[in-house]
């Protein structure tokens, strides 16, 4: 189909997407990736064989992305990989090309012979990519074709992570490729059990829970994102205090600049550390409320603990710190909806409509009161 007729078809069928260049063309991933140990000969060509033990280099990469470093470039080449020495009857498991997803899957396949079909999700994990549609029906069909999976396996079954389901129409994959999708467990840790149990997942493997250990691993990324947003505020407070305060620059920074910096820090601790950790116990359904309450409690503990320090300040100035803490802790708490496992689109929209005006108002009034008290003292 030439360009013009594609465009005509698109004008006619607004839902039709352009077929990406090279889609479905035969392609195997490069063997020149650090985790590839060799190749397995197949009718389609040599398929890269990967190990199931994670190297120090792999683990260092995991550590970095847990701290939000290089997280957008942590990927493997999409395509077909081999674990062990798979043959035409070995199971095919699918994954995203976020290297963390891929690494955890190959680790779970220790001691087995299997194929891994990696979809191009632009380095995003399975669940988020499924939500965006990049872990989706079209990419699945393209990747099956590009990997010549029909020539490599004799069965027509694909094991797909359950959390990939939001992007896939299993019946459409079946219709256009012949492959039947079998939804595997939610958690990669249940894969060995699932495979040993004739690809059956019990109800407990189908529910996405959000236990403390899952929330703890999210804290560093949240913290880094909170600091990224909070640090510019801190510098602005210090600078304005120094320039606008009645005292000398250094004195004004110390007296009026440090308290709002502490307020922002408390808000980051409340929103990015306490909200994830204490999520089930913080009152309210709204994450903005949970964040604000954590911020309030921290503020009361910290600033009343420092009475001797705060006694010399006007009530206006003290109120300004509280408003700043509440606004930012509420905002950062609300941002945790994105990493949580149970918030809905319409719920988040409802929460944002209600919370954002209050957060904005609280921040603006807080900053104004603080500015006023700069000139009063």
């Amino acid at each position: 189909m030439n360009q013009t007729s594609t465009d005509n078809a698109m004008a006619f069928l607004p839902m039709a997407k352009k077929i990406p260049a090279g889609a479905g063309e035969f392609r195997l991933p490069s063997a020149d990736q650090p985790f590839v140990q060799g190749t397995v000969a197949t009718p389609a060509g040599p398929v890269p064989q990967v190990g199931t033990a994670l190297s120090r280099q792999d683990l260092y990469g995991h550590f970095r992305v847990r701290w939000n470093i290089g997280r957008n470039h942590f990927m493997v080449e999409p395509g077909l990989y081999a674990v062990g020495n798979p043959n035409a009857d070995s199971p095919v498991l699918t994954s995203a090309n976020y290297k963390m997803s891929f690494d955890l899957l190959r680790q779970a396949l220790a001691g087995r012979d299997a194929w891994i079909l990696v979809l191009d999700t632009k380095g995003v994990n399975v669940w988020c990519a499924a939500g965006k549609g990049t872990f989706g029906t079209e990419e699945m069909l393209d990747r099956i074709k590009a990997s010549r999976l029909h020539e490599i396996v004799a069965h027509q079954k694909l094991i797909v992570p359950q959390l990939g389901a939001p992007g896939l129409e299993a019946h459409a994959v079946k219709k256009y490729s012949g492959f039947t999708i079998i939804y595997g467990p939610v958690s990669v840790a249940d894969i060995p059990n699932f495979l040993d149990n004739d690809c059956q997942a019990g109800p407990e493997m189908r529910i996405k829970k959000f236990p403390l250990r899952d929330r703890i691993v999210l804290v560093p990324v949240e913290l880094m994102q909170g600091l990224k947003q909070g640090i510019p505020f801190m510098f602005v407070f210090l600078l304005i205090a120094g320039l606008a305060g009645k005292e000398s620059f250094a004195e004004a920074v110390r007296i009026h600049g440090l308290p709002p910096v502490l307020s922002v820090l408390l808000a980051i601790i409340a929103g990015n550390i306490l909200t994830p950790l204490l999520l089930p116990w913080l009152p309210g359904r709204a994450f903005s409320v949970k964040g604000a309450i954590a911020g309030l409690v921290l503020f009361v503990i910290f600033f009343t603990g420092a009475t001797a320090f705060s006694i010399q300040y006007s009530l206006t100035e003290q109120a300004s710190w509280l408003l700043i803490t509440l606004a930012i802790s509420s905002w950062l708490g609300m941002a945790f909806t994105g990493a949580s496992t149970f918030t809905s689109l319409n719920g988040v929209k409802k929460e944002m409509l209600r919370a954002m005006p209050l957060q904005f108002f609280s921040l603006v009034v807080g900053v104004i009161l603080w500015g006023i008290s700069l000139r009063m003292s």
Partner: protein
Amino acid sequence: MANLKYFDDVISLEFNREKCIGCGLCSTVCPHGVFIGRKGNKAEMIAGELCMECGACMRNCPAGAITVEAGEGCVRAVINELLGIDGPCC
């Protein structure tokens, strides 16, 4: 962790049981146990209040019996969408 529950009054999930052909896939794909269904029996929606609008059930329902305004329950995704940015979310 039953107390991890979000706003349940704005959930857009709708199930048309008339259309259900009893494949059971909705109960397989739902990560929050909203549906119960075994092959051969029409599914039942037993916990609609736990729905997170991921859209897995709707996309995988071959009978088109389920509709939901599917999307990501993520503040940054909503803001990106409003601003028309194709930015990173998760």
